């Protein structure tokens, strides 16, 4: 292949102007079609029609000019000396980006209907970066597109000396059928248990939301007609009498939400099998859509273990794993594996992370200032509702006091437990974060898989020497708030771990 191909900055196909123009027009129409319809319906005079058409023509000319400039300014080339793909673009604001060969994850061609019509291709270059497609050259001729993409794929492979064939394919069946170390299967009973024990908080919230709406509706209804139907108003059953009805309704709804969850869980995780072979962990599940994933230790970015007291009693732990793969830059969704026993979770963790001994373990908790602030936010609605009560007596003082006390106690206890549960634990190779009031959640990642770290300090933390930290991983952020600055040496330690290793994070 020509080693100098595409080394001079060049434009996309001239047909790109048409493409850019039509996309600009399309966007404009999408934004303003309502106005257009309104205009036509308003039965305009011929003079206004002329004015508006002239305006539209002027807009069209402007859009055409913009498209032309955009086309002129859109330049790309391959810089062989610096080993990167360079793109410059933009009319009003310009961007000049360079993608190193070894960071290119994927190169592919695609066409929309419009591109099909004018016979051009989109060439997309993806990296593992946060935006989906970093480079999208929208109008390339077939010949150029194929040439460029094949060159890019070549250089990408040349600069990425990796073990081949490590895909996240579903076709890739493990050759080592016989080398199964252990297998974990979910039976129907466990699925049932999961269904019953997960998400009933959600179900409960649903029920409560339902009732609040009904209550509000009834309330406003009776408020509106209070004067006219004051006689009937008195006959509306008092709260104590209706409690029986409400309870029955409540249980029916709870039952429905549990049944829905059970069915949902059953469909999603039907036939969940976890097979451990020597080199990977194979996961298969689902009735409607069958998912097959092979979990490779190197790909794992972040792992979460979630349980709640009821599930703990049943010995059910849910594991969530965020994977990165070179084929599919980042699997957007975390992989959820519910219903694992404690021992299985440990086996999974052992496989994914290896048996690493740590010579230290350092635990951090948030400062009590955080609790105070959170409690303040519990009191805030109480105070506001009290003030409103003074101006606009929406309920009696007795009821308000009862509700306020109940709310404060529940909110206070919730925030206290939440505050107490927050822990950040550094060990030689891992970072762990624990939290949870009802659902206990534990997150962990290998220190060297961190992408970057942000330390921030609001000015009201300065006096107390507190900071907020966000650890960014490719599987999501792990944040920890209001922690003492004593943690800084460990931030330096995690940076040291990232910067001193050659191990690939994916």
């Amino acid at each position, binding site marked *: 292949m020509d080693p100098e191909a595409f080394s001079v900055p060049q434009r996309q196909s001239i047909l790109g102007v048409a493409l850019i123009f039509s996309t600009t027009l399309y966007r404009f129409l999408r934004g303003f079609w309502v106005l257009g319809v309104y205009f036509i319906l308003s039965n305009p005079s011929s003079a206004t029609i002329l004015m508006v058409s002239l305006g539209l023509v002027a807009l069209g000319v402007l859009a055409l000019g913009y498209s032309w400039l955009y086309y002129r300014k859109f330049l790309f080339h391959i810089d062989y000396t610096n080993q990167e793909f360079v793109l410059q673009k933009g009319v009003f*604001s310009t961007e000049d980006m360079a*993608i*190193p060969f070894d960071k290119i994850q994927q190169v592919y061609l695609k066409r929309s209907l419009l591109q099909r019509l004018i016979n051009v291709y989109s060439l997309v270059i993806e990296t593992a970066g946060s935006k989906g497609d970093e480079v999208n050259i929208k109008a390339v001729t077939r010949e150029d597109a194929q040439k460029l993409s094949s060159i890019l794929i070549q250089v990408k492979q040349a600069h990425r000396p990796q073990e081949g064939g490590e895909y996240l394919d579903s076709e890739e069946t493990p050759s080592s059928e016989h080398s199964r170390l252990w297998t974990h299967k979910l039976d129907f009973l466990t699925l049932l248990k999961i269904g019953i024990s997960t998400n009933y908080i959600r179900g409960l919230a649903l029920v409560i939301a339902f009732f609040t709406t009904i209550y509000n509706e009834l309330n406003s209804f009776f408020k509106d007609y209070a004067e006219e139907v004051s006689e009937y108003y008195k006959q509306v059953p008092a709260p104590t009498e209706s409690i029986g009805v409400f309870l029955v309704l409540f249980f029916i709804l709870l039952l429905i939400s549990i049944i829905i969850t059970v069915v949902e869980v059953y469909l999603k995780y039907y036939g969940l099998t976890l097979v451990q072979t020597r080199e990977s962990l194979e996961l298969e599940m689902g009735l409607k859509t069958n998912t097959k994933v092979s979990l490779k230790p190197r790909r794992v970015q972040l792992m979460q273990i979630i349980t709640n007291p009821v599930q703990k009693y049943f010995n059910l732990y849910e594991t969530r794993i965020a994977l990165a793969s070179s084929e599919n830059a980042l699997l957007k969704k975390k992989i959820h594996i519910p219903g694992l026993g404690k021992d299985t979770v440990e086996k999974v963790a052992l496989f994914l992370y290896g048996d690493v001994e740590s010579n230290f373990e350092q635990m951090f908790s948030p400062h009590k200032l955080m609790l105070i602030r959170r409690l303040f936010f519990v009191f805030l609605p109480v105070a506001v509702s009290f003030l409103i009560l003074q101006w606009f007596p929406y309920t009696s003082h007795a009821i308000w006091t009862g509700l306020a006390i109940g709310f404060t106690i529940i909110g206070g206890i919730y925030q206290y437990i939440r505050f107490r549960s927050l822990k950040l634990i550094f060990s030689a190779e891992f970072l762990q974060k624990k939290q949870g009031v009802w659902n206990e959640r534990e997150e962990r990642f290998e220190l060297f898989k961190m*992408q970057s770290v942000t330390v921030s300090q609001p*000015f009201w933390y300065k006096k107390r020497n507190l900071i907020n930290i966000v650890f960014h991983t490719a599987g999501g952020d792990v944040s920890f708030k209001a922690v003492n600055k004593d943690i800084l040496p460990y931030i330096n330690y995690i940076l040291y771990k990232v910067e001193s290793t050659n191990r690939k994070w994916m």
Partner: protein
Amino acid sequence: MENFSNNIIDINSLPQYEDVEFQSISGKYLLKSNIQTGIFMVVVLVIWGFFFFYGANPYSLWLALFAILLYFAFRFWNNYKLQQNYGYALRDKDILYRRGFMVSSTTVVPFNRVQHVSVSRDVLDKMLDLSSVQVFTAGGSGSDIGIPGLNPQLAVQLKDALAAKLSENGS
């Protein structure tokens, strides 16, 4: 795990990111922030003018004007304070970026986690001869950094230096 050894590391002897000297950004960036805030202020004042012209309740109108002016006084003062806090620093193995006044944040991106780098300029940047440098990682938008208000040559130099560091680290 090949070259993994388990020596005890004195955590306190590691290089400390918090001691790094930050480079400040171009003073012209303050002008840019003030122009942006100024345009916004003009828009708000024009809207206020409409209300004034069509005779809304004068009391609340003057109160609104007072609030608007107070808000923009704060914004301009905040711009000034923000300007002082923008800073970046390059170390051997990472790039640091600091910003924020009310909430001051520092992001550290190790070079071996950078995906790509770009230089961008908007219209105001072009008028004031400024550039900004973006550094992208795989850690989601929170982990990317964008350093504004750089001299264009400096921005290109910074980008090239980063690119060199990347290929050093690459493979």
